[in-house]
């Protein structure tokens, strides 16, 4: 029955569609091009329900996988007696029926999902099916091939390099023509702003304009590329992509020290580091064999993810969040592929499945960092001087130890006897406290067994102190050492501090319920010294148990990696303890890691004059061997350990400890969070997370990349290093195109692909696909040389055109897609600032180092759960540094730059907006930073020798890099005269205008005159032309 109805429906369809064919406009075009004509229609209107996402797919019989339109196989297969596309036969094709059906029930796309297709679209689809319904791989997923450079016959067109051939070809076909070359002044300013982010000095402009030799512009460009300012300018774009900021983000948004990464980016641009190397260092610098410090710093690229320290948040949740961000950012920055959707479900438009998303996730899922407030792991960076000092201390320590070892090397028997005592834990006896003498602040359940093993029940108080009281066994004598033993345990634990006291009965009652309040009567601690431990997790060492920080989460002892063994930490007492009448020993253990508290532990006491240290696991093996069975290395190791702990060498050991303390005391110049792979034993498994929920784990996946792209190069494995090489492999269809497009966008205001963030099927098609491919191949063939790429673009006749906009051009190509004129658009937020500092002469050109704080208005607010967001401005010259060095607080980015569309850098920013708002006008008119610049500029002009007009002319040259017209000079001269005469009647206002905030007037200066110069300086800084490159 069903099939009968179906047959009837099909017959009916054929009729409808056949009639329709008569009324449709017959396309006059040549053959349709799938990627140009068809994919955009299907992607926009159909893929959401008939695309790669199996779960969302609708239509057709489920058994056959539903109606699928994103692949040839899918579209042409039999889905229950019919097919979406029957090549060559539109009337038989379900697709054509559905988009034309008169029956509301059948008509696609459904009313509630979107607009109906128009006649033209239907016509194209019809023609496409008629012509065979061919599919092509999406253009961006095909490897770019070097196209032939088109020949340009016209002699009227200026052709400097192949860029112009490609551009000219399209100009001709669009009936447009090149604009004349821009005048040299405009060109000088344009290139300087584009390449260095600063206007050229009048001297530089002059030299270029007067350079009559051939290739003058090429030399000028080279001069700009060689400036250190080049790296500072281009780093800005990269830092947007890297979501670099000086704070950790989320609610409390604490400051984060990571500026060494910013400096790495600036240096890399200035060194013209090949982009493939730049890529590998940032994605996987730590996995390169014998990485340099610079390569390790580079990995901070992916440590710019946010860290959440809000109370009550789950570190694992936000570690996942950071990994997700790393996957998304990597795909966005290198491959302009929005992959985010695939976190929750298979991509609806592009062929990337959820499983493939988590394969990428798996690649990033195994770094040590875990959303910790201290941003571990950190790489300390030292100055040259410090490095030398460290080396010298290291040598001294090694020498000292060597000499003790030598001293003792003869006394083998003595040592072997000591080793026996070490292994038998000589002198240590267990402490067995009474259950009632133990309590925790959290009031957890407690048990003690006969060996003194203490067990503490579950409790979730975020911080917790355990208090254990005990008496010393009779005839034990003085206590000289304390040892904590933690049996093998599944769960990770972190202990933050251990304290030992002697307390009287009276003091015991004087409880200490809230550790934030000190005990009423302060009972002094016994000093614990000389820590030793069976094992210490990186950054979590036994020494930190006695550093006086009870609740600093990040100073403590932990043993991740050796949790499956019983661990020990032992301490000597600085002074032996003897208990008096009614006194007890009180041991306190402090925790500040929720869910990572000790659950089982016991103590031992020693009465040896020099207690035996805890034995490191690394020595257990050699220790248990007979001396003659040990290797030389093992013997040497044991000898060193003996020398470190043998009681008769106490003095020498102190000498070493002193040197070691000196070594620890060397504070690094800065630290930078870096990427580091976890040891093999701790590798995390990656699962598909159902709907992107990190708690809802489904099938396990292995690391890998999406199948639509060529695989990871053969000589690599699927780790970050393999991924990095994959990104910059010559087989990768996207990276080179994306890089080219981004640079093109920076110079011309828009990319050859408008959607520089999206090259997938939802993105725009390139306006000049051959040019894009030609440049991409050039880039790869020339070792990813970015300065060369920029030179190609900047020296093209296309770039050098005048940006003048005649009405015909505005009408025919308002957006300048075909580039019949030069680029002209607003400069970036940083450049607005830098330019004002540069032309006023205030700029401090110092490079690198900690971020600085220029003047900013106070809001009198705190960040949620965090510190004040206002700042003390940097003192002295630091407030005049370039914008790239301004402290970037995510919760409160520098307001004057935000007004000019600087992002907050919460996430990767591919493209900034370029708005034009009244709030911007208020910044450059009234912000004290710009008033100071106006004052400095005014004073600079006043000091020029010559009459008013000459001074003003110089002002135009400084600011706009060109001589002014008479009218322009007149306008400012009028302003100067009017303002001066007004100010001369009001000394007080004149003084304010001339000196706040810059400071005192030069000796004997006339306040009204300087006030007027400030107003003129302010006007110059606010000219429309200042905000643009022409």
């Amino acid at each position, binding site marked *: 029955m069903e099939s009968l109805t179906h047959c009837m429906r099909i017959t009916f369809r054929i009729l409808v569609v056949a009639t329709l064919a008569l009324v449709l406009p017959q396309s006059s075009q040549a053959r349709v091009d799938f990627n140009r004509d068809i994919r955009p229609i299907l992607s926009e209107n159909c893929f959401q329900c008939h695309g790669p996402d199996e779960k969302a797919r609708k239509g057709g019989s489920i058994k056959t996988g539903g109606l699928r339109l994103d692949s040839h196989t899918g579209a042409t297969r039999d889905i229950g007696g019919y097919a979406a596309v029957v090549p060559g036969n539109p009337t038989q094709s379900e697709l054509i029926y559905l988009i034309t059906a008169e029956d509301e029930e059948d008509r696609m796309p459904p009313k509630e999902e979107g607009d109906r297709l128009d006649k033209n679209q239907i016509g194209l689809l019809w023609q496409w099916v008629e012509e065979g319904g061919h599919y092509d791989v999406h253009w961006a997923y095909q490897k770019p091939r070097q196209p032939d450079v088109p020949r340009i016959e016209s002699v009227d067109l200026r052709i400097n390099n192949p860029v112009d051939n490609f551009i000219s070809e399209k100009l001709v076909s669009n009936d447009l023509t090149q604009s004349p070359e821009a005048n040299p002044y405009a060109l000088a300013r344009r290139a300087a702003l584009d390449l260095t982010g600063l206007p050229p000095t009048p001297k530089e402009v002059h030299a270029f304009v007067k350079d009559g030799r051939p290739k003058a512009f090429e030399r000028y460009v080279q001069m700009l590329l060689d400036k250190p300012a080049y790296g500072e300018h281009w780093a800005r774009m990269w830092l947007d992509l890297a979501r670099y900021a000086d704070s950790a983000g989320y609610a409390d948004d604490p400051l984060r020290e990571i500026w060494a990464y910013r400096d790495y980016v600036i240096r890399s641009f200035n060194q013209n580091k090949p982009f493939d190397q730049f890529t590998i260092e940032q994605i996987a610098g730590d996995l390169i064999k014998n990485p340099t410090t610079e390569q390790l710093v580079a990995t901070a690229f992916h440590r710019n993810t946010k860290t959440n320290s809000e109370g*009550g948040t789950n570190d694992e949740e936000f570690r996942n969040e950071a990994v997700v961000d790393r996957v998304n950012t990597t795909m966005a920055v290198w491959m302009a592929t929005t992959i985010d959707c695939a976190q929750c479900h298979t991509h609806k438009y592009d062929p990337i499945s959820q499983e493939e998303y988590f394969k990428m996730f798996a690649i990033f899922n195994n770094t040590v960092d875990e959303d910790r407030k201290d941003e571990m792991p950190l790489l300390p960076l030292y100055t040259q001087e410090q490095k030398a000092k460290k080396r010298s201390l290291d040598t001294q320590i090694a020498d000292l130890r060597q000499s003790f070892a030598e001293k003792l090397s003869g006394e083998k028997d003595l040592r072997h006897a000591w080793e026996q005592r070490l292994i038998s834990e000589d002198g240590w006896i267990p402490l067995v406290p009474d259950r009632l003498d133990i309590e925790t602040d959290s009031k957890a359940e407690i048990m003690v067994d006969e060996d003194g093993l203490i067990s503490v029940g579950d409790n979730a108080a975020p911080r917790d102190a355990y208090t254990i009281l005990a008496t010393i066994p009779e005839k034990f004598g003085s206590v000289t050492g304390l040892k904590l033993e933690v049996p093998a345990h599944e769960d990770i634990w972190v202990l933050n501090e251990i304290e030992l006291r002697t307390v009287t009965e009276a003091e015991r009652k004087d409880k200490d319920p809230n550790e934030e309040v000190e005990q009423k009567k302060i009972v002094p601690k016994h000093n614990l010294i000389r820590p030793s431990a069976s094992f210490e997790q990186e950054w979590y060492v036994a020494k930190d148990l006695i550093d006086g920080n009870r609740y600093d989460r990040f100073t403590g002892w932990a043993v991740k990696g050796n949790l499956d063994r019983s661990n020990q930490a032992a301490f000597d007492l600085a002074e032996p303890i003897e208990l008096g009448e009614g006194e007890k020993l009180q041991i306190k253990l402090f925790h500040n890691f929720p869910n990572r508290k000790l659950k089982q532990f016991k103590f031992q006491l020693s009465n040896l004059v020099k207690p035996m240290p805890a034995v490191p696991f690394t020595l257990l093996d050699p220790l248990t061997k007979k001396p003659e069975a040990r290797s030389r290395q093992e013997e040497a190791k044991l000898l060193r350990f003996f020398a470190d702990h043998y009681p008769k060498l106490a003095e020498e050991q102190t000498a070493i400890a002193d040197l070691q303390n000196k070594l620890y005391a060397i504070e690094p110049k800065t630290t930078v969070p870096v990427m580091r792979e976890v040891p093999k034993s701790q590798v995390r498994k990656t699962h598909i997370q159902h709907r992107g929920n990190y708690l809802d784990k489904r099938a396990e996946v292995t690391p890998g990349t999406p199948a639509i792209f060529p695989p990871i190069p053969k000589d690599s494995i699927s780790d970050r290093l393999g991924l990095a090489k994959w990104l910059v492999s010559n087989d990768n269809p996207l990276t080179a195109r994306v890089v080219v497009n981004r640079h093109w966008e920076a110079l011309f205001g828009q990319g050859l692909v408008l959607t520089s963030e999206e090259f997938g099927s939802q993105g725009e098609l390139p306006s000049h696909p051959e040019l894009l491919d030609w440049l991409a191949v050039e880039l790869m063939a020339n070792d990813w040389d970015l300065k060369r790429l920029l030179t190609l673009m900047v020296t093209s006749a296309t770039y050098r055109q005048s940006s003048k906009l005649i*009405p015909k051009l505005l*009408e025919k190509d308002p957006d300048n897609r075909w580039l019949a004129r030069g680029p002209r658009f607003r400069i970036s937020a940083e450049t607005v600032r830098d330019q004002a500092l540069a032309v006023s002469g205030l700029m401090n050109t110092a490079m690198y180092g900690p971020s600085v704080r220029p003047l900013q208005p106070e809001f009198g607010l705190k960040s*949620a759960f965090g510190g004040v967001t206002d700042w003390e401005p940097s003192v002295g010259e630091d407030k005049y540094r370039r914008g790239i060095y301004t402290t970037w607080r995510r919760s409160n980015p520098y307001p004057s730059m935000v007004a000019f569309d600087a992002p907050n850098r919460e996430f990767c920013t591919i493209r900034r907006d370029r708005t034009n708002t009244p709030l911007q006008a208020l910044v450059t008119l009234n912000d004290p930073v710009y008033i100071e610049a106006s004052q400095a500029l005014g004073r600079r002009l006043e000091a020029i020798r010559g009459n008013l007009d000459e001074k003003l002319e110089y002002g135009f040259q400084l600011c706009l890099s060109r001589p002014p017209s008479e009218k322009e000079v007149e306008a400012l001269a009028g302003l100067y005269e009017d303002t001066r005469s007004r100010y001369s009647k009001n000394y007080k206002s*004149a003084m304010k205008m001339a000196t706040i905030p810059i400071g005192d007037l030069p000796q004997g200066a006339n306040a009204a005159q300087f006030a007027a110069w400030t107003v003129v300086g302010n006007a110059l800084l606010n000219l429309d032309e200042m905000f643009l490159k022409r």
Partner: protein
Amino acid sequence: MNPALENIRNTTRRHFLKQTFSGLGGVALGSLVNPHAAGRLVDPMAAKQPHFPAKAKHVIYLHLTGSPPNLDLYDYKPELIKRDGQDCPEEFLKGKQFGFTTGTPKLLGARRKWGRYGKNGLWLSDAIPHLHEVADDLCMIHSLNTDQFNHAPGELFVLTGSSRPGRPSFGSWVTYGLGSPNEDLPGFIVLISSGSQPNGGKNSFGNGFLPPVYQGVQCRSSGDPVLYVTNPEGMDDVTRRRSLDAIQQINAIHAEEYGHPETLTRIAQYELAYRMQTSVPEVMDISREPKNMIEAYGAEPGASSFANNCLLARRLVEKGVRFVQLFDWGWDFHGTNKSTGIGQGLVDKCATVDKPIAMLIKDLKQRGLLEETLIICGGEFGRTPFREGRTAASKVLGRDHYPDCFTIWMAGGGVKGGYSYGATDELGFSVTENKVHVHDFQATLMHLLGFDHKRLTYRFQGRDYRLTDVHGKVVQDLIA
């Protein structure tokens, strides 16, 4: 007075634009809308029509940062009061995560007097006595629920539809959709009291991927209300005008020579900035209000307070500002100290907002503005019906974060007054009637402003985004 100058002053922004355009040979505005164009040129704040006619034309959103305890203010639970101090039944804790509570906490009943107010007898506690007087205007939703139980994600979820930073806020969507009728003031203004930024930072009033003109402009209570709106020291209005004339004169030369529309926009924006220099300080100066009005709000000129911000909100809406967002810090009633306890702490905190909110409603009503102004008041989630874990042994009582049910109320703007919607179980653990998810709530707000929440979208990275993500159903019952 210079007649040319006078002429510029009297020229409105749009008129100004139009004149300059016709001077340029009548370029059609429509051809320049492409957002990628080098010189885009449409006034993004021009007032626009929504999808269908609606009553609400303005929004005042009172966000009480930290989340007020619904069970002590709005949602009366006699059974919970009766079982105060008993162990919390296991069934309510299973499989749930809380910020600061584990184990078995104790139930905590409200320690307040309750009464029924207004014609329809809405239940309200005695912590908010002034609200009793406007009960007939309140539209209570007791059945809200969210996906988030930490502050920052919770607040972002309520205000941007996503728990992660980076999406446009509600205010940005509304200004994007409706523009703003006042040409001399920003369309979306943010006022913050009690000393801290909202949990989501600037993201809570950010534009996300919408153009930055739609971001909330944060006005300060001291110093320049809008950044840099005041002339520098030593520059008076005449000098500013004179200097602008010189700037514009040169810009005009430039516009003629290069023919770029963006230059014209800049000329217009400088004029708007100039007008804002007068209009913003004027509207932000509450001392211009009659004394009794200031008192009725409990405001104090020169201070920084929620009361001042309520009065400002009324002044701004009166001037045509589209969206006023208030944030008030200090509603996180954990009971970790006296001021965050649900006893005196809550009463004291309520006293700083109760009177100004009630007055805001009355004042708008009196001016005939309540009908077209939607007031919303609430936090980012609810609070537990039990004592939170950390302070279980303390004398101060407090509640933990709770996502499953909470109360937000609305007034004016086309909602039913004196109306209570949705219900929770007798202990306040779960919604038993008319569940309203945050996305449903947002869909309803959009509807009240005349938008189909599914159709107010913005294309970003190849996808059409909207406030309600891919969810949301309009709650028709709330609409008058």
